[in-house]
């Protein structure tokens, strides 16, 4: 339990870095660097959790930090790299609805929107200084992850979008007092992710979603007499 002002400052620097990784996930085209960026982002979020643990002394935060590092900084990128090796694509160049430039513009607008809407009621919720930036950046990160899901065509980058979204929810939850509920939410999102991962692994991960659909459709023949 420490109450040093430097801890708050470190958290703010980490926020800045998380925001920088968020925009890189939208724009980077090479898959391996995309995984590196995601891994880096998870490190930063784990660091935020650790700094909060130093500040509050809550063991939940420490275990969250350890869990994040173990799963998202090592395990998930490792598995993703394995998948990438097996599917022989190195870059994701296809975008839908929005080009990266458009995505960044929309992302910027979204952050301001989140800021604007949160500024209306957050001051009544919590008096802690870091709660507001944490909430804004967490929710924006989740929304940016959602944008990755619908602007990228390749399945593997879509998964990365899910993961980013989950990181955003995690960051948001770190600053909320009632953790158990949020953890449940996390588990649900993780479950969705797991299902997507499993399905995709089963039905050809190297396809875009349209090809995937036709591939999936061929299996309906099994159920026809």
């Amino acid at each position, binding site marked *: 339990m420490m109450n040093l002002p*430097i801890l708050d*400052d*470190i958290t*703010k*620097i980490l*926020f*800045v*870095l998380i*925001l*920088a990784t968020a*925009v890189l996930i939208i*724009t980077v085209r090479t898959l391996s660097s995309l995984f590196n960026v995601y891994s880096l982002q998870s490190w930063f979020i784990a660091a935020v959790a650790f700094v909060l643990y130093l500040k509050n002394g809550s063991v939940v935060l420490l275990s969250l930090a350890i869990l994040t590092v173990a799963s998202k900084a090592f395990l998930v990128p490792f598995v993703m790299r394995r998948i990438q090796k097996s599917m022989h694509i190195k870059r994701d160049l296809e975008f839908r609805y929005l080009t*990266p*430039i458009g995505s*960044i*513009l929309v*992302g*910027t607008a979204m*952050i*301001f929107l989140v*800021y604007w809407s949160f500024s209306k009621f957050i001051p009544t919720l919590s008096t802690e200084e870091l709660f*507001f*930036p944490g909430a*804004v950046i967490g929710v924006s990160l989740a929304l940016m992850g959602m944008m990755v899901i619908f602007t990228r065509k390749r399945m593997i980058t879509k998964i990365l979008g899910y993961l980013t979204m989950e990181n955003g929810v995690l960051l948001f939850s770190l600053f909320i007092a009632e953790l158990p509920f949020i953890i449940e939410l996390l588990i649900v999102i993780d479950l969705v992710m797991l299902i997507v991962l499993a399905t995709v692994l089963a039905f050809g991960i190297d396809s875009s979603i349209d090809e995937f659909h036709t591939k999936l459709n061929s299996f309906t023949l099994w159920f026809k007499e």
Partner: protein
Amino acid sequence: MSFLIYALLNTVFIILISPLFVSLIKKVKAFSQGRQGPPLLQTYYSLSKLLKKETVYSTNTSMIMRVTPYINIVCILVASLCVPAVYIPGMAAGFGNIILFLYLLVFAKFFMALAGLDASSTFGGMGSSREMTVSAVIEPVIIIVFTALGLLLKTTNLYEMFRTSLQSSLFINPSTLLISLSLFIILIVETARIPVDNPETHLELTMIHEAMILEYSGPNLALMEMSHAVKQTVLMAVLINILIPWGLTTAPNILTVSISIIAFAVKGVILAVAVGFFESMFAKSRLFRLPNLFMLAFFFSFSTILFELLK
């Protein structure tokens, strides 16, 4: 009077050190490609060689071609006064104003583009057209970046900015980190470095900056090269003085000034090496993909503004 001393000292220092940074970046790039590269003093040799040669003008050129090198070097040197490298002077009327600084740089660029058109060679015209296209996109971004900088440090005067950043630290203003990323991108774009332009080639397909100065020879070419080098040092100095201003002094005497000169040289060398590595890591990107890079700078400066609001 004291400002005159500052002006003299700063200009001489920046002129002396700029060619070193240019060769250093070339050296780092050569090393990363497994070559030995030119000696560190090569840019000084080339400049002195060019100064001794005669000037050749094409018969199609007008006076624009003749005055541009002088306008260019004067604009950039005056702009360099806004970015102290030796010590931060007291207020001097108009100097250090952000708008003045940016418009001096743009004025020089405008005349360079005119000179590119002036010789009526296709290369020059193409270079000017590309330069103006890129500028038209990057200019609003630069304005936003410097607006964010002004909002962050609560002033529109560069001297005041550096004074504030000298007193604060990364911990007080964490968004300095974001704005530095934007400034780095601006440095890369404005000095025509790799994802935007390749300074090494004279291929018609890729060149932007080199195309515009293709018609120059002798002392005029030396002036153009020099102004490019000084511009690079000036932009590097902005980044250095915002992110790592340590060593820069506000109370000039012989000791503190020499400390800040040495500190600036060391930081400049580190930044030049970083730029060299950055250039080696990327390939030249297509012209239509450039707004991507600019958008990153735009996003980082907007997030800086957001962080200011969140405080």
